[in-house]
């Protein structure tokens, strides 16, 4: 069953086409990775879906509902949860409070939201830090907090923006395990924009490759990494 359907997504910046007619679909319960060299348009694509940018053309349909051009908060109401590439914790609030803000999207009752926040923190192994100020966390912890906060909004689709960047191999593996478990246990659909191939290969059911704003390959991980077009755009050939 298709959860997210993106059709003909296009966005230009001052004449430069960042995303040129991208179309793809994501099934419920799948983990899909969006990869591509720098400047390929991954982040723009991500922001178009997440509601941070309005597209010039094309549609984004989530769970049968058009969310094209929705602002970030409306996109959240529709079921999108997202993290930021440069993490944005609420520094002066505690870890618990950070996630509670997210949980308050699904419920108005603060006590219920706090309980849900605890649950999510446990899932992400951050419960022991619940009382600490978010500003005191290490980078991997902040990344997990970011994910926890987005999860607490009970999204249908979780968008991860280069969440593995800056993490050490062991930390990457831990994050991969967390997402794997989430996907397995709750059926959470995940779209991740990622550079770190280690994580992509370990997590993704399907990979979409973007290059100069266009999709040049799509499929199972082992197929995609052997695809000559993909190899060419990553390793050389025509200048990007």
């Amino acid at each position: 069953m298709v959860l997210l359907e993106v059709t003909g997504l296009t966005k230009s910046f001052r004449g430069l086409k960042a995303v040129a007619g991208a179309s793809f679909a994501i099934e419920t319960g799948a983990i899909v990775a969006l990869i591509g060299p720098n400047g390929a348009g991954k982040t723009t694509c991500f922001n178009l879906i997440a509601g941070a940018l309005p597209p010039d053309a094309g549609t984004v349909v989530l769970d049968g509902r058009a969310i094209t051009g929705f602002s970030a908060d409306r996109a959240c109401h529709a079921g999108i949860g997202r993290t930021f590439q440069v993490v944005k914790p609420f520094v002066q609030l505690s870890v618990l409070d950070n996630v509670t803000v997210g949980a308050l999207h699904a419920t108005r009752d603060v006590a219920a939201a706090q309980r849900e926040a605890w649950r999510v923190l446990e899932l992400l192994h951050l419960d022991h830090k619940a009382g600490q100020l978010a500003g005191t966390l290490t980078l991997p912890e902040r990344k997990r907090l970011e994910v926890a906060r987005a999860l607490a909004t009970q999204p249908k689709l979780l968008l991860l923006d280069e969440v593995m960047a800056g993490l050490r191999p062991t930390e990457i593996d831990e994050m991969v395990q967390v997402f794997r478990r989430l996907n397995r246990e709750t059926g959470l659909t995940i779209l991740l924009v990622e550079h770190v191939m280690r994580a992509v290969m370990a997590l993704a059911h399907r990979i979409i490759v973007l290059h100069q704003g266009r999709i040049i390959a799509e499929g199972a991980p082992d197929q995609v990494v052997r695809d000559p077009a993909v190899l060419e755009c990553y390793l050389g050939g025509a200048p990007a």
Partner: protein
Amino acid sequence: MSRSAPALPGRVRVGLILALALLLAAPWVAGPYLLSVLVLALYYAYVGQAWNVMMGFAGQLSLGHALYVGLGAYVSATLYLHAGIGPWAGAPIAALVSAGAGAVIGFLAFRFGIGGVYFALLTIAFAEFTRIGFEHIDWLGGAGGLFLPVVARGQLDIVDLRGGPRLFYYVLLALTAAALWLCSRLKHSRIGYYWLAIREDPDAARALGIDLFRYRVLAAAISAGMTSIGGTVIAFYYNSLTPADSFGSAKSIEIILGPLVGGLGTLAGPILGAFVLTGLGEALRALLDATGHQVPGATQLFYGLVLLLVIKYLPNGIWPGLARRLGLG
């Protein structure tokens, strides 16, 4: 730091009870001068808390809050003088008018994406515009302002708020306590969480489904409405109001000194700040009087210095350090 109400250590509890007893008994033991100082301190504690809702909670800097003090004063005074409507009914009406004004200003500003210093300037502009406007409206008294009939000594009319400092002391004490309660409830409610999120990181807040515009306007309206009640009370206390006194930019600055010195965004900060500043200010004035010199501007200069020092060395105000020392949170 958990945001549920902290369990207070024993000695703090005792201290609070003592303080409360003192506060309740004060009008009967304090002399008239001290009482007037306390009334002023409570007034600033109250309006400081009201302002804090917008700045400390929602992060919007308003430097024109005297607008709402003035609206509260003028609406209720006019209703009393021209329509015989007493302040107990006049205050809520004035509060609604002010909340409306706050919502309009908030709407205009946030709809057009104005924040930071531009928003602060916008609030100043609205306050000054209104001040000058009121100075030219003759049936509101023009620049000379309005006068409420002064009461005979010893007369106590609670319904019309005609009475001596003792009456106003208790009214302001009750208001400050009510504001404290309201702010505490707000802070621990969904609205409070959302306001803090907006203050901390608006983009992240939006991604969590928070409608920035709605909550900012709400903060502006609530803050404005609360402030205006203070304006009503102070007008009936002084029995006179002028546009300069009510809407003046100096007044707007006075409102924010308490919360800044005491601690932005905290519950106790505005109250602490108001008492500290008013107390020190009066002490300075008393000191100068004792030397025989009446130096106009000395207290304001002093406040300026205090503000400078606090901003430079205690940017979070006095309260957070004090709270840590007392073992709270």
